[in-house]
């Protein structure tokens, strides 16, 4: 209980830091007042001043921060300067799309990466090992936008077997089943892009971890008592899973921040696209909201990973 409390407290402290940092980070990035003036050439100076006051931009930073902190703590993420919509509703609309895309990719990368890592470790120093590791690192090293463009060119433009982007067909109608399949069809290329992009790190971590465990005495003992190869490998995998769990947990935290490049490339209306639009428009409230949600997700997932560590490895609990 003490461990859980300490870790939760540390996570809460980090979140408070993020809350403060979040506010000042975007103020350093730019000045939305100038943009407001230039974007409204037919507004009188008096009207511009009224809008500035309405958005609270005429107040000093300290006052703005107090308002921001009070609103955020009461669950109000403010209103977007650009769209005029509540930031929470914009995030609520984008989040499920990102979960579909980045969540699926992270899930697939975790499963496939784990399996390939174990496979490579079981065949270490062989051609199979080299092939698996090198090919996954090849995709890992390739920029997401480049990989995505290649997939779009191949499957959407040349073969025309997948849509080139978007979340669903336009106009989107039909039965629920066909709409789900339609979304899945649209998600496939970006999911493949993301999965291939992040697969490498899972493969490498899992391979290294399993290979290390395979050197342990208990593995030798297991072999000595005549356990079948796949059972020995199962035991090694279970003991090698800790670094993998940590990586997966952190990556699942990043899921909520979206994938800016891939979502933009495939016009996928998720958190990444929302962030990109907000950056382009110096939309402070949206940026603050998105970063807060993303940071909170990473912090919570880290906390879960820490707790999972303690659950999976009794030595951590003892310490």
């Amino acid at each position, binding site marked *: 209980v003490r461990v859980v409390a300490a870790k939760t407290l540390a996570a809460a402290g980090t979140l408070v830091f993020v809350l403060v940092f979040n506010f000042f980070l975007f103020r350093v990035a730019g000045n939305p007042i100038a943009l407001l003036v230039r974007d409204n050439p037919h*507004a009188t100076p008096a009207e511009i001043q009224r809008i500035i006051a309405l958005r609270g931009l005429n107040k000093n930073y300290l006052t703005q921060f107090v308002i921001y902190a009070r609103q955020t703590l009461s669950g109000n993420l403010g*209103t977007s300067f650009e769209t005029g919509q509540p930031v929470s509703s914009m995030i609520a609309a984008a989040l499920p799309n990102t979960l579909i895309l980045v969540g699926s990719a992270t899930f697939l990368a975790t499963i496939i990466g784990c399996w390939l890592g174990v496979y490579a470790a079981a065949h270490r120093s062989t051609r199979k090992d080299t092939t698996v590791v090198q090919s996954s690192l090849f995709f890992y090293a390739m920029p997401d936008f480049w990989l995505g463009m290649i997939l779009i060119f191949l499957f959407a433009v040349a073969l025309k077997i997948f*849509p080139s982007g978007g979340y669903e067909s336009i106009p989107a109608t039909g039965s629920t089943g*066909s709409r789900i*399949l339609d979304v899945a069809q649209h998600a496939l290329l970006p999911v493949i892009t993301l999965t291939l992009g992040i697969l490498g790190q899972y493969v490498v971590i899992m391979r290294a971890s399993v290979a290390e465990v395979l050197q342990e005495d208990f593995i030798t003992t297991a072999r000595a008592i005549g356990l079948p190869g796949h059972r020995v490998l199962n035991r090694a995998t279970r003991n090698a899973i800790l670094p993998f769990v940590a990586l997966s947990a952190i990556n699942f935290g990043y899921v909520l921040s979206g994938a800016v490049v891939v979502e933009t490339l495939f016009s996928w209306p998720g958190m990444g696209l929302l962030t990109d639009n907000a950056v382009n428009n110096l939309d402070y409230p949206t940026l603050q909201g998105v970063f807060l949600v993303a940071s909170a997700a990473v912090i919570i997932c880290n906390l879960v990973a820490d707790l999972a560590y303690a659950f999976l490895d009794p030595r951590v609990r003892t310490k």
Partner: protein
Amino acid sequence: VKHVIGRAGIVGLTLVLASALAFEVFSARSPQARASTVSTVWRMGYLDQIDQNANIFSASEDITYFIFTEVYDIPLNPSLATTLPSTRYSPVSRYVLSDQGKTITYYLRPHLRWSDGKPLTSADFVWSWEHNQYGVSSEYTAALKSIKALSPTEVVVHLKHYDARLLADFIPILPEHIWGKLSNTQLLTYDPCCPIVGSGPFYVKSLNPNGTTVLLPNPYFYGPRGHIKEILLIHYDDPNAALRDLELGNLDAVFHGLTTWLPALRHYPHIRLWAGPGYGFDEVAFNMCPPHGSPICTRPSPSVHVDVVQNLAIRQALQWAINRAALAKQVYNGLAAPATGLISNAYTPLGYYTNFKNDPSIDYRYDPAKSLEVLHAGGWRCPPLNSGGVCMRHGVPAEFTLMLRSADLQEEQEGLRVQSWARAVGIKINIEVTSDDAIDTAIDTYSNSSNPKDRYKYEPSYDAFLWDWNGGDPQSPDYDMDQLQCGSSYADSMWCNQRYTALTNEALQERNFHKRVALLHEAEKLELYYSPYVLTVYSPYIFVTRTDTWHGYRRSPAGFGWPFGMSWEQLQLIQPGRPVTDHYLGAPIVVLGAAALTGLFVGLGRLRRRRLERMPLETDEDAGVTPP
């Protein structure tokens, strides 16, 4: 399950499920494609973002104004042929100007209705114009003295003075029964969606700034019916994604595309690129804040190269040194036009534009020798043309910094060419590629002056920057001219010339068109002479349409202008073609492939497990690896 039906059963079941899914996907074709042999839905991609919930009081993006054009009426909608105010398809059937143009009486069509069925009357008109002052287009009704409804179809407007823009300005008639419930402050933040009620041919059914926005026909529309049953506006963050979807038939049009698309689109016979005229211009703006200050600034920041950028000979020399025709051709694929004055060639059909080619003092054609001559006359000692040297005057080199926006690659290209041409005549330009925001900040740096009068004045810290101005209206160039007036909050060069200000103000209140044009041209010449802005090109608005799904687009103004977005009448006139189906085989292939792979892995796994059970795992020693 495995024990009940066995492995073969699992594989078989998977295949059956996969086939069922594949069939479902096959049958999940576009409803548009299934339902009709002609297009009924018009799908337009756009790259900006619909802003402020499409609230007319606070929105400013072009795409949002496209929606307003379809949803709202102004009293006198623009004529399709000329873009000038017309009664042909407008809520106002007749209007009378009297009292030296200071009184306008509008007569509304009888029995007008909003898209929600409520009657549209003169009370709506009066409320809308009275409350325009609370929105971001407040300048439009600056001349308004009073407005009154004389009857349900009659409105009289009294002005402080005649305003040449007023009849054409976009001051829409709004439904008072919706907006009238709000306080003046709430008008800016109100979410009118959805539906967004108007009197135009469409109303907004749903709005998603990051996705797809849907417009449906207004059942109570007074004008001609079009063929479009649904408009879908689809947001793209990546221009190439929009272009790709257009090529693949997932879009029918793209609003405000890029000139760089032209070469790629030449290979697509079903796609047409339209270069609509731009009502503004690209310009190199110089820091003209006088050392003693002006109504808008206190002084230039000490870091500014005042002796260079505020030297008339330098600016005029640059005017002669720039090859505008080459800029238009090389940077904009020939779709832009060389800029010759503040009034764009887009105003040619209205009679405003002139290129001053008969005026030798301000016809700034490309002439490096003339440029050098101007520098010499201005007291600069310059090396020969193309020698790579820099002109000097009183020990000061002709050198300054030009800020360019990193977000606009074409402006960057423009800036680099300007740098090269300037260097050829002995003016050294240091390029600083930066964000829009950095330029904004350099312009709008508030003064440190302790004088209370200077509280909201600037102390601009830039030498020069290159960007564009799109403030112009299709019906009148006044908004382009206004921004250089003394004290204008948009006077980003901080130039202040009383004569210029007086001329543009006089032009605005002049009822005689020819006199008005003459006044504007006189002001334009002043700007060309002093050159606070060195204009480069009139960059175009790009529209891209498919020609097979919908056709019959009509430019406005006729033969010259935009194919849509200028008047709602344009979309009412387009004709449906064959819909392009979106039918992908990818999902069935993947589903069947996944099923096959599942079967394969199950089989291989079983074989492998049997093999592993027969033989122990290979040890390091067996593999020849020495343990550490």
